[in-house]
């Protein structure tokens, strides 16, 4: 089993409570199972008794995790409980125990295809090609990250292979990626291709500075917790004239409503709505017209889905708005 490669993490997390306050799901379900300790205990139980791998309650819990990695980022030893859950999901899938909704979702994700348009030496993969003049644009859905997160490793590799083929066909040696989950997935998977996040790229360009304004920046799970608190999104916003107002009561929790699990809203809409409600409640304390900015289109769309009036845009939206 894949979980057996992570004995050190199991051993560290199964009886440790030190990061439980940061689990976004545990903070809305209040259950012990929805904490890093709770999940590590379950996985340890599976490790000791393989029959538990088919336990529906255990499987449901593993797929409820939002995989924010806030816990790992906070942990003084950075034990990778998130990676442990991903390993367990892979074991579940390979043993044929994936829930029907997970299988159906994986089936859809496996159909992804990719095409390249335009001219240029840099390839842009996102939804704002107008911000990248002189760049080719790559269109298509998730490049395999979502499948990997669901535990479908082989299917993920196939989609990634199709993505790589499209990139190779473009002949570009630099890939600019907008969605943080895709950036996290691709950054070390494309041989000979430099992968940068769109905010890093835009920061290196002459971005038009607008008038002084304020916005709350909702940190991205992937750019903060998975990529050592990448400063580019915040620096870009500041360069564009935005003063960033802190959100919530602290800088440690994830307010990314399941971004780390990539397709969390498709998988757990009820729970995802609860995560959104928590953000709306905290936002209620902010000024009425506060603008919320996120690096993730997933976060924007999800927050808008459960409250269309919620004033949230992507960082690229803001730059586009200033540029156009």
């Amino acid at each position, binding site marked *: 089993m894949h979980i057996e490669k992570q004995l050190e993490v199991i051993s560290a997390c199964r*009886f440790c*409570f*030190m990061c439980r*306050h940061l689990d976004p799901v545990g903070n809305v379900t*209040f*259950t012990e199972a929805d904490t890093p300790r709770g999940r590590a205990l379950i996985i340890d139980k599976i490790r000791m008794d393989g029959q538990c791998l088919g336990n529906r309650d255990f499987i449901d819990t593993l797929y409820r995790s939002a995989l924010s990695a806030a816990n790992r980022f906070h942990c003084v030893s950075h034990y990778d409980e998130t990676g442990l859950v991903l390993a367990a999901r892979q074991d579940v899938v390979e043993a044929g125990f994936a829930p029907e909704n997970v299988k159906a979702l994986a089936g859809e994700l496996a159909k992804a295809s990719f095409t390249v348009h335009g001219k240029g030496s840099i390839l842009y993969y996102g939804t704002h090609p107008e911000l990248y003049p002189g760049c080719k644009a790559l269109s298509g859905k998730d490049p395999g990250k979502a499948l990997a997160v669901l535990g479908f490793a082989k299917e993920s590799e196939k989609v990634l292979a199709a993505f790589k083929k499209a990139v190779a066909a473009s002949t570009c040696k630099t890939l600019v990626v907008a969605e943080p989950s895709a950036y996290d997935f691709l950054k070390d998977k494309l041989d000979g291709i430099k992968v940068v996040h769109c905010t890093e790229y835009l920061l290196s360009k002459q971005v038009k500075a607008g008038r002084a304004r304020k916005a709350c920046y909702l940190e991205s799970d992937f750019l903060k917790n998975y990529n050592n608190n990448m400063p580019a999104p915040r620096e870009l916003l500041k360069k564009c004239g935005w003063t960033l107002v802190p959100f919530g009561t602290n800088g440690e929790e994830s307010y990314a409503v399941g971004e780390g699990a990539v397709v969390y809203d498709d998988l757990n809409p009820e729970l995802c709505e609860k995560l959104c409600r928590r953000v709306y409640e905290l936002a209620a304390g902010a000024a009425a017209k506060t603008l919320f900015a996120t690096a993730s289109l997933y976060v924007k769309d999800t927050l808008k889905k459960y409250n269309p009036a919620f004033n949230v845009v992507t960082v690229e939206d803001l730059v586009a708005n200033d540029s156009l």
Partner: protein
Amino acid sequence: MTQNNYLFEMIRSELTWIVGEAYVQTHDADKLGHSIDYYWVPELWHDRGEKLTPPDFVVHPATAKEVSEILKIANTHNIPVIPWGGGSGSQGGALPIYGGIVLDMKRMNKVLNIDPLSMTVTVEVGINTQHLEWEVEKAGFSTMHFPASIACATLGGFIAHRGTGVLSTKYGKIEDMIMSLEVVTPTGEIINTLPVPRHASGPSLTELFLGSEGTLGVVTQATMKIHPIPESRKFHAFLFKTMHDAMAAGSKIMTNRLRPCAIRLYDETETAKLVKRVLGIDRKGAYLVFGFDGPEKMVDLELEQACAICRKGALEDLGTEAGQNWWDNRYKFFYPPYMFHLPQAFGTLDTVATFAHIEKVYWAMKTTVQDNFPQATFIGHFSHWYEWGCMLYARFIIDNPPQDPHEAVALYNKIWDMAIRAAIREGGVINEHHGVGLKLGRMMKDLYGPAFKVLESVKKALDPNNIMNPGKMGFPGKGV
């Protein structure tokens, strides 16, 4: 209770009617998490693949009224109710040893009011204490409650076992921080204790419930003191040749009535092991660190007074940087891999005594452990200091306990029995802030003597059916 019988379904229906379907859990995943707290024995049980005792139901109430209704159901069916906060207690106090209903309080997590004039916060006690601190800080104050378990535990958990934080020397333990409580009694009445902790209107009901570990009712709401965020907080550290020399300096700081926010003294063994490993301070001797907070001028003055006391007997002045290093890393000691963990056997022999007795307690426990259990290492630090004495956070560690879980627990309990009784003989009190729970219940009669009958009478009067956390704190169980 088996999930296949009628009664199980009848009770589940009753509970569901009170809190809603989403908040009554009977799934394996939920029950596993509630079968193990931070007590070493259930951890070992899990590790060795032994069968744990799960609750029958995990219920998440949202209001005191819901708690009241749940307790009435439990009385009707005579089933145990075990309040659960963060589950991070080390004494087995939250374990559902007879099954029954685990009342997980985390859904009751709202800050209800911050009174800036009286400087109090009123809050539902299921709130995680780090979340509480963040909310209070956002309003410009601090609870000054900074336990190592701040991120793990709920306020209710601290109230249940009289917990404490790093700054206890100045700001007190939880019992000093609490103004008043809302409690649901075992028979379901919702009561409030008097709104202020200082009065002459009879005995303090607040005190009765503080430390009652869920055996006398369910605390649902609390009003606690909050404090201004201090202008300055500074630390300083010294190395002493022996723990005795450092103890002399530390006690002098306290008896001279300086008001440090924290003092911590590590014995020679813990200095060599943990202080070196966590803080990187590699010295032979006893490490003493202290700090002051408040207006900067006062901090500087008191810090200088304390340093002057220490310089007379210290081997080395480690300076402010070494002191600040400790403060910055104060929680690091409790994260893996720095904290002891299985396969090791380990226990915290938490004891408190006056300055006249505390060193005798230390040596009595150390000698007992070393003479009788050569396989065990004994380390200790003194971590909560008062005008009259301090707390000894002694620990024993066995790197390779018996593989057989029954043998391992028998050995573990024997160390506790001998070490704690040695401490009691020398004037020590078990314990200062971890509580009694399942682990130390058997020693309550030794500790209290005839006075324990008073506690038993209170328990019987408040909880006639013995539904509240049976078998804990030395109170009767439900029968096995």
